[in-house]
């Protein structure tokens, strides 16, 4: 089949699925909507695989030109898709993980009244995400960028009767929009200096630009990435986004959408390579986010919130990798993270499902006997994220750590510390959920096969995912890096100067520490029977962390409240006291003038006659002697 048609069908099928499901949502009964949705994504996945197999990385990117989207003046933005190593990688992740999550959702959303709407939105999301990663220019990417934001908004607020969920959805959308501001401005600037937004053309033209311009553009693009990928200071929406159904959290807020920022930077690696200052900003933003989010994660009691903070933290790691210029390591972590974080979320979903909606880990415990498959897969996911060899997380995280060590040992130490904290809270989560005695009052039951099969598949991927980019020290050839190098010039420029012995030593150190931390967590949480107190009753430091460093409160005081106040003030003072009186003043002036002039209208006819005669005389004299 023609590659263009194939490429168009990849996002086209989910879109079609969304439209069909939305149109037929009233007549679709039972699981049919879910099956239809899964079928659409599954076919997209199959097509992606076909594209992958048919793609020759050495031949460079293939551009599937559909039609001219915006064409005015010197701006020619085609609606075109780019198929290359990078977009293929993302496509495979999105459609692959997406298919599994769709399948899982059939079981998870089985009882919901609006299941058709759910699948329509999920399909729509996949469509937007595919646009994002497949776009051949920044504008198409931006369509997807906003589209995923929209779907995220809709899915977070899926249970719309709950005001808190709606608030969370709105928060997510607005914070994303703040990021979009940066993105749009970056694009406007980029277009202004290069006259194009098509990736290939832009990258050819940036070389001659001044460093200030490039720094500015990349910083603006990075602002966009911050919003979408939930980095400091815009990460607070992501934990709240857990209000959505769990498969949504898995697909959107863990595996795919939040990695859009990473994708954007990798895609623009040419620009970022030329702007070292921005790279440093990326690096430190990622580092701080990784640590802050990890510390918050330790004191969360909601199973999904823990995973959410872990997502933020892991995204921080990816940004660190990008800031170091280790794009392939970042992408590798994106891939493995998609596997194991989706697995963890789905596992959490399975737990929640098993307990009939319970999300508080303090009311769980001892579930490992009751829900065996979930337990096993969750354990595998936890091991993967903790970085135990030979699970996938080990390789991807180690690649980042090694690059960090190459830059500075302090950086390495900080990141390793973050990784250890991650291990700690993940195992706290694991032990509190599955070990010890059951502390709740529901009767746990294992999820149906339609939910456990995706778990198993993802578990397998989490275990073996590391093979995708097996480093040299293990005898691999980093196949993913070489594959991606064809797509992003920045990857080709990567270099890592570490002796094999150093690498071995670093791995050994991290593994040993991780195991130590697991043991610590086991000791503290495995047999825990008492409940943790509420956040408010904790001492200061833990309370600070459990309260997310009071960031939400800070933002509320700093932005939300003043904004509402400003709105009221503008309306009351600006409109009420200044604008309208100003206008009324003009009217009143006219009225006054009228009142003065009307005195001349005495109503006395004789007076009018005299006035008329006087007027005639004056005019006559004027015409006589006027000139």
């Amino acid at each position, binding site marked *: 089949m023609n590659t263009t048609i194939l490429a168009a069908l990849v996002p086209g099928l989910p879109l079609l699925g969304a439209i069909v499901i939305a149109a037929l949502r009233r007549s679709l009964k039972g699981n049919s909507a879910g099956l239809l949705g899964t079928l659409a994504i599954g076919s997209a996945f199959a097509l992606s695989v076909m594209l992958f197999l048919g793609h020759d990385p050495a031949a460079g990117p293939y551009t599937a030109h559909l039609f001219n989207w915006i064409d005015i003046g010197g701006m020619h933005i085609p609606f075109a898709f780019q198929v290359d190593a990078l977009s293929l990688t993302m496509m495979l992740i999105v459609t692959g993980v997406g298919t599994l999550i769709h399948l899982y959702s059939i079981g998870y959303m089985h009882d919901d009244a609006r299941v058709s709407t759910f699948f329509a939105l999920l399909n729509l999301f996949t469509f937007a995400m595919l646009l994002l990663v497949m776009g051949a220019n920044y504008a198409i990417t931006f369509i997807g960028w906003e589209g995923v934001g929209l779907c995220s908004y809709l899915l977070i607020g899926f249970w719309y009767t709950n005001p808190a969920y709606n608030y969370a959805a709105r928060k997510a959308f607005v914070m994303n929009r703040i990021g979009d501001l940066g993105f749009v401005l970056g694009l406007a600037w980029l277009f202004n200096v290069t006259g194009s937004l098509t990736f290939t053309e832009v990258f050819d033209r940036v070389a001659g630009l001044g460093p200030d311009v490039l720094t500015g553009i990349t910083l603006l693009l990075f602002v966009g990435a911050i919003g979408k990928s939930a980095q400091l200071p815009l990460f607070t929406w992501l934990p709240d986004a857990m209000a959505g159904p769990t498969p949504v959290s898995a697909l959107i807020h863990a595996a795919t959408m939040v990695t859009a920022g990473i994708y954007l930077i990798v895609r623009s690696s040419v620009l970022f390579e030329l702007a070292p200052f921005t790279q440093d900003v990326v690096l430190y933003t990622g580092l701080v986010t990784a640590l802050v989010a990890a510390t918050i994660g330790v004191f969360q009691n909601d199973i999904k919130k823990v995973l959410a903070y872990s997502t933020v933290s892991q995204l921080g790691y990816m940004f660190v990798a990008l800031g170091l210029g280790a794009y392939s390591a970042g992408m590798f972590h994106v891939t493995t993270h998609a596997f194991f974080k989706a697995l963890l979320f789905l596992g959490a979903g399975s737990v929640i499902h098993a307990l009939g909606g319970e999300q508080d880990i303090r009311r769980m415990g001892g579930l490992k006997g009751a829900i065996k498959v979930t337990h096993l897969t969750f354990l595998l996911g936890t091991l993967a994220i903790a970085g135990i060899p030979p699970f996938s997380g080990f390789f991807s995280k180690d690649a980042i750590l090694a690059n960090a060590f190459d830059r500075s040992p302090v950086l390495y130490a900080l990141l390793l510390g973050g990784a250890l904290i991650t291990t700690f809270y993940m195992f706290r989560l694991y032990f509190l959920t599955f070990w010890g005695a059951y502390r709740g009052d529901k009767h746990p039951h294992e999820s149906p096969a339609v939910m456990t099969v995706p778990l198993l598949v993802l578990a397998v991927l989490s275990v073996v995912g590391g093979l995708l980019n097996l480093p040299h020290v293990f005898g691999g050839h980093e196949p993913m890096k070489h594959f991606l190098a064809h797509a992003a010039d920045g990857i080709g420029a990567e270099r890592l100067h570490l002796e094999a012995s150093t690498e071995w030593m670093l791995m050994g150190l991290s593994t040993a520490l991780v195991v130590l931390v697991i043991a610590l967590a086991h000791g503290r949480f495995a047999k825990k029977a008492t409940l943790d107190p509420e956040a408010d009753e904790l001492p200061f430091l833990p309370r600070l962390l459990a309260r997310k460093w009071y960031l939400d409160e800070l933002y509320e005081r700093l932005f939300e409240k003043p904004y509402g106040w400003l709105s009221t003030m503008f309306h009351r003072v600006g409109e009420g006291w200044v604008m309208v009186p100003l206008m009324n003043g003009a009217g009143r002036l006219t009225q006054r003038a009228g009142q003065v002039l009307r005195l001349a*209208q*005495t*109503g006395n*006819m*004789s007076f009018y006659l005299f006035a008329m005669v006087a007027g005639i005389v004056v005019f006559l004299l004027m015409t006589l002697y006027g000139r």
Partner: protein
Amino acid sequence: MEPVVTAIRQVPLEHYVALSFILFSIGLTGALFRRNTIIILMCLELMFNSVNLLLTAFSAHHSDPGGQVFVFFTMLVAAAEVTVGLAILVMMKRNVDSVDINQLNRLKG
């Protein structure tokens, strides 16, 4: 030149102009002078006629019938005006029982 025309032009145009000015001024003064609305209406007629006279004089001295046609139209308008004016007068008498122009002071702004 025909004798009739010669006869007409024996009186210089300026005299006609002066006469009509005098008549007009008399009418105007009357309109200002009197309070009786019906007299004021008559003064208006006097002014009309002075203008008519002037137009006719010009027309005759100029041998152009247009002026006289114009006088004809003025008369038409005057007739219409008088009709309406007198009707208003009757109304006024009926409503305020007076034809004093100063009674019509409701036009106050």
